[in-house]
Protein backbone atom coordinates (compact mmCIF):
# COMPACT_ATOMS: atom_id res chain seq x y z
CA UNK A 1 0.00 0.00 0.00
CA UNK A 2 1.53 3.29 -1.04
CA UNK A 3 1.49 6.13 1.42
CA UNK A 4 2.55 6.84 4.96
CA UNK A 5 0.79 5.60 8.07
CA UNK A 6 2.03 7.33 11.17
CA UNK A 7 0.81 7.07 14.72
CA UNK A 8 2.82 8.65 17.50
CA UNK A 9 2.14 9.31 21.12
CA UNK A 10 4.67 10.89 23.43
CA UNK A 11 4.78 13.27 26.35
CA UNK A 12 7.34 15.63 27.79
CA UNK A 13 7.07 18.33 30.42
CA UNK A 14 4.15 20.47 29.40
CA UNK A 15 3.82 18.96 25.94
CA UNK A 16 2.06 15.92 24.64
CA UNK A 17 1.79 14.63 21.11
CA UNK A 18 -0.92 12.30 19.94
CA UNK A 19 -1.36 11.93 16.20
CA UNK A 20 -2.69 9.29 13.86
CA UNK A 21 -2.12 10.15 10.22
CA UNK A 22 -2.61 8.59 6.84
CA UNK A 23 -0.65 10.62 4.32
CA UNK A 24 -0.53 10.37 0.54
CA UNK A 25 2.43 8.64 -1.07
CA UNK A 26 3.08 11.52 -3.43
CA UNK A 27 2.97 15.29 -3.60
CA UNK A 28 3.76 17.86 -0.94
CA UNK A 29 2.10 17.46 2.45
CA UNK A 30 2.45 20.57 4.57
CA UNK A 31 2.24 20.36 8.35
CA UNK A 32 0.79 23.72 9.27
CA UNK A 33 0.34 25.21 12.71
CA UNK A 34 1.71 27.67 15.24
CA UNK A 35 5.06 27.04 16.87
CA UNK A 36 4.81 24.53 19.67
CA UNK A 37 2.00 22.65 17.93
CA UNK A 38 4.16 19.56 17.50
CA UNK A 39 4.67 19.60 13.74
CA UNK A 40 8.46 19.45 13.96
CA UNK A 41 8.20 16.64 16.51
CA UNK A 42 6.06 14.61 14.11
CA UNK A 43 8.65 15.11 11.39
CA UNK A 44 11.48 14.09 13.74
CA UNK A 45 9.54 10.99 14.74
CA UNK A 46 9.13 10.06 11.07
CA UNK A 47 12.86 10.58 10.51
CA UNK A 48 13.70 8.53 13.59
CA UNK A 49 15.47 11.46 15.27
CA UNK A 50 12.88 11.23 18.03
CA UNK A 51 11.50 7.99 19.35
CA UNK A 52 7.90 8.15 20.46
CA UNK A 53 7.20 5.85 23.39
CA UNK A 54 4.18 4.59 21.51
CA UNK A 55 4.43 4.66 17.78
CA UNK A 56 3.79 2.92 14.54
CA UNK A 57 5.18 4.06 11.23
CA UNK A 58 4.66 2.32 7.93
CA UNK A 59 6.06 3.88 4.77
CA UNK A 60 5.17 2.34 1.43
CA UNK A 61 4.34 -0.92 3.15
CA UNK A 62 7.63 -1.12 5.08
CA UNK A 63 7.46 -1.00 8.88
CA UNK A 64 9.90 1.58 10.22
CA UNK A 65 8.59 1.54 13.76
CA UNK A 66 6.18 -0.47 15.84
CA UNK A 67 6.25 -2.24 19.19
CA UNK A 68 8.92 -4.66 17.97
CA UNK A 69 10.68 -2.83 15.14
CA UNK A 70 12.86 0.21 15.12
CA UNK A 71 14.71 1.28 12.03
CA UNK A 72 17.58 3.58 13.04
CA UNK A 73 17.81 6.96 11.33
CA UNK A 74 20.78 6.07 9.17
CA UNK A 75 18.94 3.12 7.67
CA UNK A 76 15.80 5.08 6.70
CA UNK A 77 15.70 6.07 3.02
CA UNK A 78 14.96 9.70 3.77
CA UNK A 79 16.32 13.11 2.95
CA UNK A 80 16.08 15.66 5.75
CA UNK A 81 16.40 19.43 5.56
CA UNK A 82 16.77 21.11 8.94
CA UNK A 83 15.36 24.49 9.83
CA UNK A 84 18.63 26.32 10.26
CA UNK A 85 21.93 25.95 8.50
CA UNK A 86 23.09 22.45 9.19
CA UNK A 87 25.94 22.03 6.74
CA UNK A 88 28.93 20.13 8.07
CA UNK A 89 31.35 22.96 8.74
CA UNK A 90 34.51 20.92 8.17
CA UNK A 91 33.53 19.98 4.63
CA UNK A 92 33.19 22.05 1.47
CA UNK A 93 29.88 22.26 -0.36
CA UNK A 94 30.79 19.36 -2.63
CA UNK A 95 32.10 17.47 0.42
CA UNK A 96 28.71 17.91 2.07
CA UNK A 97 26.93 16.67 -1.05
CA UNK A 98 29.18 13.62 -1.34
CA UNK A 99 29.03 12.73 2.35
CA UNK A 100 25.54 11.30 2.13
CA UNK A 101 25.76 10.27 -1.48
CA UNK A 102 28.71 7.95 -0.87
CA UNK A 103 27.04 6.32 2.13
CA UNK A 104 23.69 5.83 0.46
CA UNK A 105 25.41 4.01 -2.37
CA UNK A 106 23.26 5.77 -4.91
CA UNK A 107 25.94 7.63 -6.82
CA UNK A 108 24.50 6.27 -10.03
CA UNK A 109 20.82 6.57 -9.19
CA UNK A 110 20.71 10.29 -8.60
CA UNK A 111 22.70 12.45 -10.88
CA UNK A 112 24.69 14.84 -8.76
CA UNK A 113 24.93 17.21 -11.70
CA UNK A 114 21.17 17.21 -11.99
CA UNK A 115 20.72 18.06 -8.30
CA UNK A 116 23.36 20.78 -8.50
CA UNK A 117 21.65 22.29 -11.53
CA UNK A 118 18.20 22.02 -9.96
CA UNK A 119 19.28 24.08 -6.95
CA UNK A 120 21.62 26.36 -8.88
CA UNK A 121 24.68 25.80 -6.70
CA UNK A 122 27.24 24.90 -9.36
CA UNK A 123 29.37 27.98 -8.62
CA UNK A 124 29.57 27.24 -4.89
CA UNK A 125 30.98 23.71 -4.86
CA UNK A 126 34.44 24.48 -3.52
CA UNK A 127 33.31 26.94 -0.87
CA UNK A 128 33.18 26.30 2.86
CA UNK A 129 29.74 26.59 4.49
CA UNK A 130 30.97 29.56 6.52
CA UNK A 131 31.37 31.55 3.33
CA UNK A 132 27.85 31.08 2.00
CA UNK A 133 24.81 33.31 2.47
CA UNK A 134 21.81 31.94 4.39
CA UNK A 135 19.88 31.28 1.20
CA UNK A 136 22.81 29.53 -0.46
CA UNK A 137 23.33 27.36 2.60
CA UNK A 138 19.73 26.22 2.58
CA UNK A 139 19.90 25.44 -1.14
CA UNK A 140 22.98 23.31 -0.52
CA UNK A 141 21.19 21.59 2.38
CA UNK A 142 18.27 20.77 0.08
CA UNK A 143 20.62 19.50 -2.63
CA UNK A 144 22.43 17.38 -0.06
CA UNK A 145 19.15 15.81 1.08
CA UNK A 146 18.26 15.01 -2.53
CA UNK A 147 21.69 13.61 -3.35
CA UNK A 148 21.11 10.56 -1.16
CA UNK A 149 18.29 9.53 -3.49
CA UNK A 150 15.61 9.57 -0.78
CA UNK A 151 12.29 7.80 -1.07
CA UNK A 152 10.80 10.36 1.29
CA UNK A 153 11.86 13.99 1.64
CA UNK A 154 11.38 15.67 5.04
CA UNK A 155 11.73 19.44 5.32
CA UNK A 156 11.51 21.22 8.66
CA UNK A 157 10.71 24.89 8.01
CA UNK A 158 13.56 25.18 5.54
CA UNK A 159 12.82 28.86 4.96
CA UNK A 160 12.02 29.98 8.51
CA UNK A 161 15.50 31.26 9.27
CA UNK A 162 15.65 33.36 6.11
CA UNK A 163 14.51 36.90 5.40
CA UNK A 164 11.78 37.64 2.86
CA UNK A 165 14.23 38.20 0.03
CA UNK A 166 16.00 34.88 0.59
CA UNK A 167 12.63 33.13 0.84
CA UNK A 168 11.61 34.50 -2.53
CA UNK A 169 14.96 33.27 -3.81
CA UNK A 170 14.36 29.68 -2.70
CA UNK A 171 10.61 29.23 -3.23
CA UNK A 172 10.92 28.84 -7.00
CA UNK A 173 13.41 26.01 -6.44
CA UNK A 174 10.96 24.30 -4.10
CA UNK A 175 8.17 24.67 -6.64
CA UNK A 176 10.41 23.15 -9.25
CA UNK A 177 11.12 20.27 -6.87
CA UNK A 178 7.42 19.71 -6.30
CA UNK A 179 6.82 19.54 -10.01
CA UNK A 180 9.78 17.29 -10.89
CA UNK A 181 10.13 14.89 -7.95
CA UNK A 182 7.93 11.86 -7.77
CA UNK A 183 8.64 11.13 -4.10
CA UNK A 184 6.43 12.34 -1.27
CA UNK A 185 7.57 15.48 0.51
CA UNK A 186 6.59 16.25 4.11
CA UNK A 187 7.06 19.93 4.77
CA UNK A 188 6.70 21.69 8.12
CA UNK A 189 5.71 25.35 7.98
CA UNK A 190 3.91 28.06 9.86
CA UNK A 191 3.85 30.32 6.82
CA UNK A 192 0.58 30.58 4.93
CA UNK A 193 2.55 31.74 1.91
CA UNK A 194 4.37 28.42 1.72
CA UNK A 195 1.13 26.52 2.24
CA UNK A 196 -0.56 28.39 -0.60
CA UNK A 197 2.35 27.88 -2.96
CA UNK A 198 3.56 24.41 -2.16
CA UNK A 199 0.96 22.25 -0.47
CA UNK A 200 -1.00 19.53 -2.21
CA UNK A 201 -2.17 18.10 1.05
CA UNK A 202 -2.55 19.84 4.37
CA UNK A 203 -2.24 18.70 7.98
CA UNK A 204 -3.31 21.38 10.43
CA UNK A 205 -1.83 20.93 13.89
CA UNK A 206 -2.52 22.53 17.23
CA UNK A 207 -1.18 21.66 20.68
CA UNK A 208 0.14 18.27 19.69
CA UNK A 209 -3.08 17.18 17.97
CA UNK A 210 -4.21 17.09 14.35
CA UNK A 211 -7.05 19.56 13.86
CA UNK A 212 -7.71 18.87 10.20
CA UNK A 213 -6.22 16.95 7.34
CA UNK A 214 -7.02 16.58 3.66
CA UNK A 215 -6.29 17.88 0.16
CA UNK A 216 -5.39 21.58 0.24
CA UNK A 217 -8.44 23.06 -1.50
CA UNK A 218 -10.90 20.96 0.49
CA UNK A 219 -9.24 21.65 3.80
CA UNK A 220 -9.08 25.38 3.17
CA UNK A 221 -12.76 25.36 2.23
CA UNK A 222 -13.86 23.69 5.43
CA UNK A 223 -16.33 25.91 7.20
CA UNK A 224 -16.06 24.30 10.62
CA UNK A 225 -12.38 25.06 10.69
CA UNK A 226 -11.50 27.90 8.41
CA UNK A 227 -7.74 27.79 8.02
CA UNK A 228 -6.78 31.39 7.65
CA UNK A 229 -4.08 32.04 5.15
CA UNK A 230 -2.86 35.63 5.20
CA UNK A 231 -5.18 36.21 8.14
CA UNK A 232 -8.33 35.67 6.11
CA UNK A 233 -10.53 32.86 4.92
CA UNK A 234 -10.23 32.04 1.25
CA UNK A 235 -9.86 29.37 -1.36
CA UNK A 236 -6.87 28.19 -3.37
CA UNK A 237 -7.47 27.09 -6.96
CA UNK A 238 -5.04 25.56 -9.41
CA UNK A 239 -5.26 27.24 -12.80
CA UNK A 240 -3.54 27.59 -16.15
CA UNK A 241 -3.02 30.75 -18.16
CA UNK A 242 -5.45 30.11 -21.04
CA UNK A 243 -5.23 33.31 -23.03
CA UNK A 244 -3.84 36.82 -22.93
CA UNK A 245 -5.84 39.83 -24.06
CA UNK A 246 -3.11 42.23 -25.06
CA UNK A 247 -5.50 45.07 -25.86
CA UNK A 248 -6.90 45.21 -22.33
CA UNK A 249 -3.80 43.88 -20.56
CA UNK A 250 -5.73 40.98 -19.13
CA UNK A 251 -4.97 37.27 -18.77
CA UNK A 252 -7.49 34.47 -18.63
CA UNK A 253 -6.94 31.83 -15.98
CA UNK A 254 -8.67 28.54 -16.67
CA UNK A 255 -9.57 26.13 -13.90
CA UNK A 256 -11.76 23.06 -13.69
CA UNK A 257 -15.09 24.79 -13.52
CA UNK A 258 -14.59 28.02 -15.38
CA UNK A 259 -12.20 30.84 -15.99
CA UNK A 260 -11.29 34.16 -14.44
CA UNK A 261 -9.85 37.30 -15.95
CA UNK A 262 -7.10 39.05 -14.13
CA UNK A 263 -4.40 41.63 -14.79
CA UNK A 264 -1.83 40.34 -17.25
CA UNK A 265 1.37 39.89 -15.32
CA UNK A 266 3.40 38.68 -18.23
CA UNK A 267 2.96 34.97 -17.63
CA UNK A 268 2.99 32.88 -20.83
CA UNK A 269 -0.03 30.95 -22.05
CA UNK A 270 0.08 27.42 -20.63
CA UNK A 271 1.80 28.49 -17.42
CA UNK A 272 0.39 26.70 -14.39
CA UNK A 273 -0.15 28.59 -11.19
CA UNK A 274 -2.28 28.85 -8.09
CA UNK A 275 -4.67 31.63 -7.30
CA UNK A 276 -5.91 32.71 -3.90
CA UNK A 277 -9.48 34.03 -3.76
CA UNK A 278 -10.41 35.61 -0.45
CA UNK A 279 -13.91 35.11 0.90
CA UNK A 280 -14.41 38.86 1.26
CA UNK A 281 -13.81 39.33 -2.48
CA UNK A 282 -16.59 36.93 -3.47
CA UNK A 283 -20.28 37.92 -3.62
CA UNK A 284 -23.41 36.09 -4.74
CA UNK A 285 -26.25 37.22 -7.02
CA UNK A 286 -29.58 35.80 -8.10
CA UNK A 287 -29.11 36.72 -11.74
CA UNK A 288 -26.22 38.19 -13.73
CA UNK A 289 -26.49 41.93 -13.99
CA UNK A 290 -24.29 44.57 -15.57
CA UNK A 291 -21.63 45.23 -13.00
CA UNK A 292 -18.06 46.40 -12.69
CA UNK A 293 -17.27 42.90 -11.52
CA UNK A 294 -16.44 41.05 -14.73
CA UNK A 295 -15.72 37.62 -13.29
CA UNK A 296 -19.08 35.95 -12.90
CA UNK A 297 -19.35 32.18 -12.54
CA UNK A 298 -22.25 29.78 -12.15
CA UNK A 299 -22.08 27.82 -8.90
CA UNK A 300 -24.03 25.72 -6.44
CA UNK A 301 -24.29 26.57 -2.75
CA UNK A 302 -22.50 23.76 -0.96
CA UNK A 303 -22.64 24.77 2.70
CA UNK A 304 -23.25 27.74 4.96
CA UNK A 305 -21.28 28.26 8.14
CA UNK A 306 -20.59 30.78 10.87
CA UNK A 307 -17.95 33.41 10.45
CA UNK A 308 -15.95 35.31 13.01
CA UNK A 309 -18.77 37.79 13.65
CA UNK A 310 -22.43 36.88 14.40
CA UNK A 311 -23.55 39.23 11.61
CA UNK A 312 -21.50 37.38 9.00
CA UNK A 313 -21.71 34.00 7.30
CA UNK A 314 -19.21 32.00 5.26
CA UNK A 315 -20.84 30.40 2.25
CA UNK A 316 -19.11 27.63 0.32
CA UNK A 317 -19.92 27.48 -3.38
CA UNK A 318 -19.01 24.72 -5.77
CA UNK A 319 -17.97 25.94 -9.21
CA UNK A 320 -17.21 22.92 -11.36
CA UNK A 321 -14.58 21.06 -9.35
CA UNK A 322 -13.47 24.10 -7.44
CA UNK A 323 -14.71 25.30 -4.07
CA UNK A 324 -14.95 29.02 -3.36
CA UNK A 325 -15.72 30.76 -0.09
CA UNK A 326 -17.89 33.87 0.04
CA UNK A 327 -18.37 36.13 3.01
CA UNK A 328 -21.90 37.55 3.25
CA UNK A 329 -23.86 39.26 5.95
CA UNK A 330 -26.46 37.10 7.63
CA UNK A 331 -29.07 39.59 6.39
CA UNK A 332 -27.96 39.09 2.79
CA UNK A 333 -28.18 35.31 3.21
CA UNK A 334 -31.77 35.69 4.41
CA UNK A 335 -32.78 38.36 1.87
CA UNK A 336 -31.42 36.45 -1.14
CA UNK A 337 -32.65 33.12 0.11
CA UNK A 338 -29.22 31.57 -0.06
CA UNK A 339 -29.69 27.88 0.72
CA UNK A 340 -27.70 24.71 0.25
CA UNK A 341 -28.25 23.19 -3.19
CA UNK A 342 -29.35 26.42 -4.83
CA UNK A 343 -27.63 27.59 -8.02
CA UNK A 344 -26.44 31.19 -7.97
CA UNK A 345 -24.10 33.55 -9.76
CA UNK A 346 -20.74 34.00 -8.11
CA UNK A 347 -19.03 37.36 -8.54
CA UNK A 348 -15.29 37.40 -7.97
CA UNK A 349 -13.94 40.85 -7.40
CA UNK A 350 -10.27 40.11 -7.00
CA UNK A 351 -7.87 37.26 -7.61
CA UNK A 352 -4.40 37.02 -6.13
CA UNK A 353 -1.79 35.03 -7.98
CA UNK A 354 0.16 32.90 -5.55
CA UNK A 355 3.48 33.50 -7.24
Amino acid at each position, binding site marked *: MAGIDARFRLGWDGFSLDVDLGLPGRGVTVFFGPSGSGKTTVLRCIA*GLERAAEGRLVVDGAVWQDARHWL*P*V*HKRPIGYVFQEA*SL*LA*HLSVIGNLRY*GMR*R*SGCGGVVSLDHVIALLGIGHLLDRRPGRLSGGERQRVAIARALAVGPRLLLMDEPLAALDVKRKQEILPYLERLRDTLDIPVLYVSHSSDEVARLADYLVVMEEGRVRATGPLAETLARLDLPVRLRRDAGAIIAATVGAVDAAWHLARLDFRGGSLWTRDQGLPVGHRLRVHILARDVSLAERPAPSSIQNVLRGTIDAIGDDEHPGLALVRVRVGEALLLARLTRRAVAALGVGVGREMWVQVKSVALVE
Partner: protein
Amino acid sequence: MLLTESDLQAIGLTVRLASTVTLILLILGTPIAWWLARTKSWWKGPIAAVVALPLVLPPSVLGFYLLLAMGPNGPVGRLTAILGIAPLAFTFRGLVVASVFYSLPFMVQPLQTAFAAVGTRPLEVAATLRASPWDAFFTVAVPLAAPGFLTAAILTFAHTVGEFGVVLMIGGNLPGVTRVASVQIYDHVEALAYDDAHRLAAALMIFSFLVLLVLYAWPSRRNPAP
Protein backbone atom coordinates in the same frame (compact mmCIF):
# COMPACT_ATOMS: atom_id res chain seq x y z
CA MET B 1 76.28 25.38 28.96
CA LEU B 2 75.74 21.78 27.80
CA LEU B 3 73.44 19.42 29.65
CA THR B 4 75.12 16.41 31.20
CA GLU B 5 74.53 12.93 29.94
CA SER B 6 72.30 12.09 32.88
CA ASP B 7 70.33 15.27 32.22
CA LEU B 8 69.77 14.16 28.63
CA GLN B 9 68.78 10.74 29.84
CA ALA B 10 66.25 12.28 32.20
CA ILE B 11 64.87 14.47 29.43
CA GLY B 12 64.60 11.47 27.08
CA LEU B 13 62.74 9.55 29.76
CA THR B 14 60.43 12.47 30.38
CA VAL B 15 59.53 12.78 26.71
CA ARG B 16 58.94 9.03 26.49
CA LEU B 17 56.69 9.13 29.55
CA ALA B 18 54.71 12.16 28.40
CA SER B 19 54.20 10.75 24.88
CA THR B 20 53.05 7.39 26.19
CA VAL B 21 50.66 8.97 28.67
CA THR B 22 49.25 11.34 26.05
CA LEU B 23 48.65 8.47 23.65
CA ILE B 24 46.96 6.31 26.29
CA LEU B 25 44.83 9.20 27.48
CA LEU B 26 43.72 10.03 23.94
CA ILE B 27 42.30 6.53 23.79
CA LEU B 28 40.90 6.42 27.35
CA GLY B 29 39.88 10.04 27.72
CA THR B 30 37.96 10.40 24.45
CA PRO B 31 35.11 8.02 25.34
CA ILE B 32 34.90 9.47 28.86
CA ALA B 33 34.74 13.02 27.49
CA TRP B 34 32.19 11.97 24.86
CA TRP B 35 30.01 10.36 27.48
CA LEU B 36 30.27 13.34 29.83
CA ALA B 37 29.43 15.76 27.01
CA ARG B 38 26.29 13.93 25.93
CA THR B 39 24.86 12.00 28.85
CA LYS B 40 21.84 13.09 30.87
CA SER B 41 22.55 10.37 33.42
CA TRP B 42 22.56 11.02 37.13
CA TRP B 43 26.12 9.66 37.14
CA LYS B 44 27.46 12.59 35.14
CA GLY B 45 28.15 14.71 38.24
CA PRO B 46 29.98 12.08 40.31
CA ILE B 47 32.05 10.87 37.34
CA ALA B 48 33.00 14.43 36.37
CA ALA B 49 34.05 15.08 39.97
CA VAL B 50 36.24 11.98 40.08
CA VAL B 51 37.87 12.94 36.78
CA ALA B 52 38.62 16.41 38.17
CA LEU B 53 40.05 15.16 41.49
CA PRO B 54 43.71 15.26 40.41
CA LEU B 55 43.28 19.00 39.78
CA VAL B 56 42.85 19.69 43.49
CA LEU B 57 44.48 16.72 45.26
CA PRO B 58 48.05 17.08 46.42
CA PRO B 59 50.07 14.78 44.14
CA SER B 60 51.39 13.05 47.25
CA VAL B 61 47.86 11.94 48.18
CA LEU B 62 47.27 10.43 44.76
CA GLY B 63 50.75 8.92 44.74
CA PHE B 64 50.26 7.47 48.21
CA TYR B 65 47.05 5.65 47.28
CA LEU B 66 48.47 4.44 43.98
CA LEU B 67 51.55 3.17 45.79
CA LEU B 68 49.35 1.24 48.23
CA ALA B 69 47.28 -0.16 45.35
CA MET B 70 50.39 -1.25 43.45
CA GLY B 71 52.11 -2.66 46.51
CA PRO B 72 52.25 -6.43 47.12
CA ASN B 73 49.07 -6.27 49.28
CA GLY B 74 47.16 -3.76 47.15
CA PRO B 75 44.51 -4.82 44.60
CA VAL B 76 46.66 -3.86 41.62
CA GLY B 77 49.69 -5.55 43.13
CA ARG B 78 47.76 -8.78 43.68
CA LEU B 79 46.36 -8.64 40.17
CA THR B 80 49.81 -8.24 38.64
CA ALA B 81 51.05 -11.10 40.81
CA ILE B 82 48.21 -13.36 39.62
CA LEU B 83 48.87 -12.40 36.01
CA GLY B 84 52.57 -13.09 36.52
CA ILE B 85 53.58 -9.51 35.73
CA ALA B 86 56.31 -7.77 37.71
CA PRO B 87 55.03 -5.29 40.33
CA LEU B 88 54.38 -1.81 38.94
CA ALA B 89 55.79 0.27 41.75
CA PHE B 90 59.22 1.77 41.04
CA THR B 91 59.02 0.90 37.32
CA PHE B 92 58.47 2.96 34.20
CA ARG B 93 55.13 1.23 33.61
CA GLY B 94 54.04 2.13 37.12
CA LEU B 95 54.95 5.70 36.35
CA VAL B 96 52.82 5.59 33.21
CA VAL B 97 49.82 4.24 35.12
CA ALA B 98 50.15 6.89 37.82
CA SER B 99 50.57 9.67 35.29
CA VAL B 100 47.49 8.55 33.39
CA PHE B 101 45.42 9.11 36.53
CA TYR B 102 47.19 12.34 37.35
CA SER B 103 46.78 13.89 33.90
CA LEU B 104 43.27 12.56 33.21
CA PRO B 105 41.42 15.89 33.67
CA PHE B 106 43.81 17.67 31.32
CA MET B 107 42.71 15.34 28.53
CA VAL B 108 39.04 14.92 29.42
CA GLN B 109 38.01 18.49 30.16
CA PRO B 110 39.10 20.20 26.90
CA LEU B 111 37.66 17.28 24.93
CA GLN B 112 34.38 17.45 26.82
CA THR B 113 34.13 21.18 26.12
CA ALA B 114 34.91 20.59 22.44
CA PHE B 115 32.34 17.80 22.07
CA ALA B 116 29.71 19.88 23.85
CA ALA B 117 30.42 22.75 21.46
CA VAL B 118 29.90 20.46 18.46
CA GLY B 119 26.41 19.73 19.78
CA THR B 120 23.96 17.12 18.60
CA ARG B 121 22.85 18.73 15.34
CA PRO B 122 25.85 17.72 13.16
CA LEU B 123 25.43 14.13 14.37
CA GLU B 124 21.74 14.18 13.52
CA VAL B 125 22.67 15.54 10.12
CA ALA B 126 25.18 12.74 9.64
CA ALA B 127 22.56 10.15 10.64
CA THR B 128 20.11 11.49 8.04
CA LEU B 129 22.97 11.17 5.54
CA ARG B 130 23.21 7.44 6.29
CA ALA B 131 26.20 7.56 8.68
CA SER B 132 26.06 5.00 11.49
CA PRO B 133 26.85 6.34 15.00
CA TRP B 134 30.49 5.16 14.82
CA ASP B 135 30.89 6.54 11.33
CA ALA B 136 29.40 9.87 12.42
CA PHE B 137 31.71 9.99 15.44
CA PHE B 138 34.88 9.61 13.40
CA THR B 139 33.86 11.58 10.32
CA VAL B 140 31.92 14.42 11.96
CA ALA B 141 32.44 14.72 15.73
CA VAL B 142 36.21 14.18 15.72
CA PRO B 143 37.01 16.57 12.84
CA LEU B 144 34.74 19.26 14.29
CA ALA B 145 36.35 18.79 17.71
CA ALA B 146 39.90 18.74 16.26
CA PRO B 147 41.02 21.96 17.99
CA GLY B 148 39.88 20.43 21.27
CA PHE B 149 41.99 17.35 20.60
CA LEU B 150 45.02 19.54 19.96
CA THR B 151 44.49 21.50 23.16
CA ALA B 152 43.92 18.35 25.20
CA ALA B 153 46.98 16.57 23.84
CA ILE B 154 49.28 19.53 24.38
CA LEU B 155 48.01 20.15 27.91
CA THR B 156 48.31 16.48 28.82
CA PHE B 157 51.82 16.24 27.46
CA ALA B 158 52.98 19.41 29.19
CA HIS B 159 51.34 18.50 32.46
CA THR B 160 52.95 15.07 32.47
CA VAL B 161 56.35 16.65 31.81
CA GLY B 162 55.77 18.91 34.81
CA GLU B 163 54.70 16.31 37.34
CA PHE B 164 56.89 15.65 40.31
CA GLY B 165 55.10 14.50 43.44
CA VAL B 166 53.42 11.46 41.97
CA VAL B 167 56.63 10.43 40.25
CA LEU B 168 58.55 10.59 43.46
CA MET B 169 55.95 8.54 45.33
CA ILE B 170 55.50 5.84 42.68
CA GLY B 171 58.72 5.80 40.75
CA GLY B 172 61.35 6.75 43.22
CA ASN B 173 64.49 8.01 41.64
CA LEU B 174 66.07 5.32 39.48
CA PRO B 175 68.34 6.69 36.73
CA GLY B 176 67.13 5.72 33.28
CA VAL B 177 63.99 4.07 34.71
CA THR B 178 62.01 6.60 36.66
CA ARG B 179 64.27 9.61 37.07
CA VAL B 180 62.48 12.18 34.89
CA ALA B 181 63.60 15.79 34.41
CA SER B 182 61.72 17.26 37.36
CA VAL B 183 63.23 14.69 39.71
CA GLN B 184 66.67 15.27 38.20
CA ILE B 185 66.40 18.96 39.08
CA TYR B 186 65.48 18.01 42.62
CA ASP B 187 68.58 15.80 42.75
CA HIS B 188 70.80 18.61 41.51
CA VAL B 189 69.44 20.93 44.17
CA GLU B 190 69.85 18.31 46.90
CA ALA B 191 73.48 17.92 45.82
CA LEU B 192 73.84 21.74 45.86
CA ALA B 193 74.76 21.57 42.15
CA TYR B 194 72.92 24.82 41.42
CA ASP B 195 74.54 25.34 38.01
CA ASP B 196 73.25 21.97 36.79
CA ALA B 197 69.84 22.66 38.31
CA HIS B 198 69.74 26.05 36.51
CA ARG B 199 70.41 24.57 33.11
CA LEU B 200 67.73 21.90 33.35
CA ALA B 201 65.26 24.21 35.05
CA ALA B 202 65.75 26.79 32.29
CA ALA B 203 65.22 24.12 29.66
CA LEU B 204 61.90 23.12 31.27
CA MET B 205 60.90 26.73 31.68
CA ILE B 206 61.47 27.48 27.99
CA PHE B 207 59.64 24.32 27.00
CA SER B 208 56.59 25.18 29.12
CA PHE B 209 56.51 28.73 27.82
CA LEU B 210 56.63 27.54 24.22
CA VAL B 211 53.80 25.08 24.84
CA LEU B 212 51.59 27.74 26.37
CA LEU B 213 52.54 30.15 23.60
CA VAL B 214 51.29 27.63 21.04
CA LEU B 215 48.05 27.18 23.00
CA TYR B 216 47.23 30.83 23.49
CA ALA B 217 48.62 32.40 20.33
CA TRP B 218 47.59 29.76 17.79
CA PRO B 219 45.73 31.54 15.03
CA SER B 220 42.00 30.85 14.54
CA ARG B 221 41.74 28.61 17.54
CA ARG B 222 38.17 27.77 18.38
CA ASN B 223 38.47 26.32 21.88
CA PRO B 224 40.27 28.38 24.48
CA ALA B 225 42.47 26.55 26.93
CA PRO B 226 40.63 25.72 30.15
